[in-house]
């Protein structure tokens, strides 16, 4: 029983750690250890390294540690550490009463996906990495679960606040939530596509109905990578032949054993959940160290899966290239300062950024103004879930370098505050048809007032119009860094009268 209990405890512990790190990250804490989980994700690290064609030290050590432990312990990461695995464990029927069919081709999809993802990385495209379990968990926590919790806590507080005797309690609770990070600094942070992320998580939970932790055994590309890595692990489950009565219970409850087997054996797919050890009526099963040998695979990386992955990646590349957005950048792609993009004449080269960004969403999380949001279709399928600044939602805070500090792969560079304050991420344009002084001849200088550049990238020109002297804002392109606070604070409703677009070099 002890191994199973330990495993359940370990899952809970890592899950709690995952929540705590992810939630606290919104409190102005940046860098390690708040980005711990994505840093220990070998699939993300390998993909990003292949993507940029050199070793990325930023994510090397964490990934190496996970892979090293997998060499020793097999796929124990899936059973003991992975937060998504824990969630899917808890949403599966705890012990399946009857094994379900396992012959379906679908069960080999994880190797197909792994090949697909790594082949795409070769072409510096990381967009399928959104199927990485750590980034799934991280993104869903950032974009859906945390905001929902925040809303709930705020709503409860709002409901109780009018009751005078409870006000002190509500204020105290608020302070506690703020300290924990459930109510982030600068107010609740909400994200685009939050419903989608939540729905995706629920879909994975629903797949548990096909078989317990169906995602983990059949689809997870990280699981496939760890299966291959842990194939020679010396940690095995050993059956005491004398005590075994061939009752078949272990085979019934094992989540990965193939159909037809009547008792467990050591396999590369085994995530060392220790259920067989715990439930064997004869106590005949135990963990043991064995001489490293090649363990059998239940869901083997067939040649078909491998070729399918390569073909799929090729097709996906072609399809992505056929997107019109591969010709022209969308004007609304404003990347966070420090994003590895290159500006040259009329072109905005994002290839390095896109081959490093693992779409974990931590930068959206730490952005104090909520301005960093997941990109949707505006940048084409290659940019799905990468960070873009949406100034109408939040601006790039002049005193903040959080996104570069939290980024686990260095897709967003760490900038000093001085560097960040000089980094052009966009350029503001005044829409004179909407701007209040230009169109309505009424006074308004909010954009100039908000501009954080010390000598002001927006200046006011005094001009006479219809007998009135008015101040007209004007952008000085050489000074504007594109932080977007002008667009954010512009009092013109809906579409602001001053808007920030992707920068260009002249």
């Amino acid at each position: 029983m002890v191994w199973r209990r330990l495993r359940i405890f370990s899952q809970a512990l890592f899950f709690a750690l995952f929540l705590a790190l992810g939630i606290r990250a919104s409190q102005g804490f940046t860098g390690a250890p708040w980005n711990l989980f994505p840093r220990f994700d070998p699939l993300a690290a390998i993909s990003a390294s292949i993507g940029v064609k050199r070793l990325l030290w930023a994510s090397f050590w964490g990934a190496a540690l996970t892979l090293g432990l997998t060499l020793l312990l097999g796929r124990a990461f899936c059973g003991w550490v992975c937060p998504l695995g824990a969630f899917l464990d808890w949403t599966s029927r705890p012990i399946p009463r009857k094994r379900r069919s396992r012959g379906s081709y679908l069960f080999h999809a994880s190797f197909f996906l792994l090949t697909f993802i790594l082949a795409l990385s070769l072409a510096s495209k990381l967009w399928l990495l959104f199927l990485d379990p750590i980034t799934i968990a991280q993104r869903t926590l950032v974009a859906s679960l945390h905001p929902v919790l925040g809303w709930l806590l705020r709503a409860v507080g709002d409901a109780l606040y009018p009751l005078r005797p409870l006000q002190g309690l509500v204020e105290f609770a608020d302070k506690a939530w703020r300290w924990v990070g459930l109510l982030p600094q600068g107010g609740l942070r909400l994200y685009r596509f939050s419903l989608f992320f939540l729905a995706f998580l629920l879909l994975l939970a629903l797949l548990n109905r096909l078989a317990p932790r169906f995602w983990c055994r059949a689809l997870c590309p990280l699981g496939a990578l760890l299966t291959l890595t842990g194939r020679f692990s010396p940690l095995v489950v050993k059956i005491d032949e004398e005590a075994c009565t061939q009752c078949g219970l272990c085979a019934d409850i094992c989540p990965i054993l193939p159909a037809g087997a009547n008792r467990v054996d050591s396999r590369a797919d085994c995530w060392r959940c220790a259920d067989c050890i715990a439930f064997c009526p004869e106590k005949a099963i135990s963990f043991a160290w064995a001489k490293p040998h090649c363990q059998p695979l239940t869901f083997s990386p067939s040649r078909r899966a491998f070729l399918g992955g390569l073909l799929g990646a090729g097709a996906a590349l072609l399809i992505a290239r056929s997107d019109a957005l591969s010709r022209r950048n969308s004007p609304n792609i404003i990347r966070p300062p420090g994003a590895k993009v290159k500006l040259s004449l009329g072109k905005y080269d994002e290839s390095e950024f896109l081959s490093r960004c693992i779409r974990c969403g931590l930068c959206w999380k730490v952005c104090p103004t909520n301005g960093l949001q997941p990109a949707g279709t505006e940048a084409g399928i290659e940019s799905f879930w990468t960070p873009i600044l949406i100034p109408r939602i939040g601006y790039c805070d002049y005193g903040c370098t959080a996104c570069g500090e939290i980024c686990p792969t260095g897709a967003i560079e760490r900038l000093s505050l001085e560097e960040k304050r000089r980094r052009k991420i966009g350029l503001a344009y005044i829409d004179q048809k909407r701007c209040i002084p230009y169109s309505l001849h009424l006074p308004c200088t909010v954009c100039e007032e908000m501009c954080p550049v010390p000598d002001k990238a927006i200046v006011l020109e005094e001009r006479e119009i219809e007998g009135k002297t008015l101040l007209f804002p004007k952008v000085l392109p050489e000074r504007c860094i594109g932080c977007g606070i002008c667009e954010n604070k512009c009092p013109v409703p809906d579409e602001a009268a001053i808007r920030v677009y992707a920068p260009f070099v002249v």
Partner: protein
Amino acid sequence: MPEECSRREFLKYLLGWTAALFLEGCMGKPQPAPLTPTLSPTSTVPPTSTLTPTPKPSQTSTTLPPSAEIAIARGKDWEAITRAAVEAIGGMKAFVKPGDTVLLKPNICTAGRPPEYAATSHPVVVATVAKMCWEAGAKKVLLFDLPFSGTQEAAYKDSGIADAVKGLDVELLFASPRHYEKVPVSGRDLKEWTFLRQALEADVFINIPIAKHHSEAGLTLGMKNVMGVIQDRPFMHWNLHQRIADLNTVVHSHLVVVDATRILVAHGPQGGRLEDVRITDTVIASADVVAADALAATLFGRSWRDIGYIRIGAEMGLGLPEGRRLAEVVL
């Protein structure tokens, strides 16, 4: 029988709960602070000079203290001049009564600007006022400003104010929508606006602006500083000066302590260039926000007549731009 019993019980409960709700309604409910200031000796000085504005109804009944009505203190020791300025107009005891809840409203308009950039009220001045409140017997000292750029947490920290009031038991308030309330405004332009509840409810509202340049308002001083306790600030700009004056009819500054230890003379309100900062070693204190602003404007070589909201404030009888008994202290 059971049916009859349950109906009777139902009616009994109904009656009981109605009574309970009614009684709850009789209990102290949050009341908005009176729009006119509470009477305290110096905050409601009746006009004495030849320049007589129309006094507000509640401003006529108090006696005049023997002290000055506005003070300007100069000196290198900023804590000392803050104390001296407030002492000269009667001391903090004239404004804060034992058991009062005090709200300090420094100007912390943005995060990311350390005090030397003169974008935010100086931590020494703010902390000194906080200390004086405790010395006068305050029950609670709150501090609030909502920056337009950056989070409140970062603004409190970057301005040096969070550190300066550490250990002084000052409660830094953090804004949440539930802390705001829409109240009627009897202004010339505004009819209603959303204000921070604590600013309306505090017994004493101490306005601690930094004197600095402001691109649209000309200068930002005490009256403009009240914009920190409202919501929907960008919408003020359609008629900025009148609306600032209107806000001051709702939020009365019982005491104004203008931090002019260093002033920002250009690129306000955010600044960011040390070249735009002048060290002026000055603190101005008054219970009359119009008088304090008018005097502070002279530090920039400007007249109160040039600054729209001060002029309008004077017209509306919010205070006296000239003619207050002035005490000058040089340390």
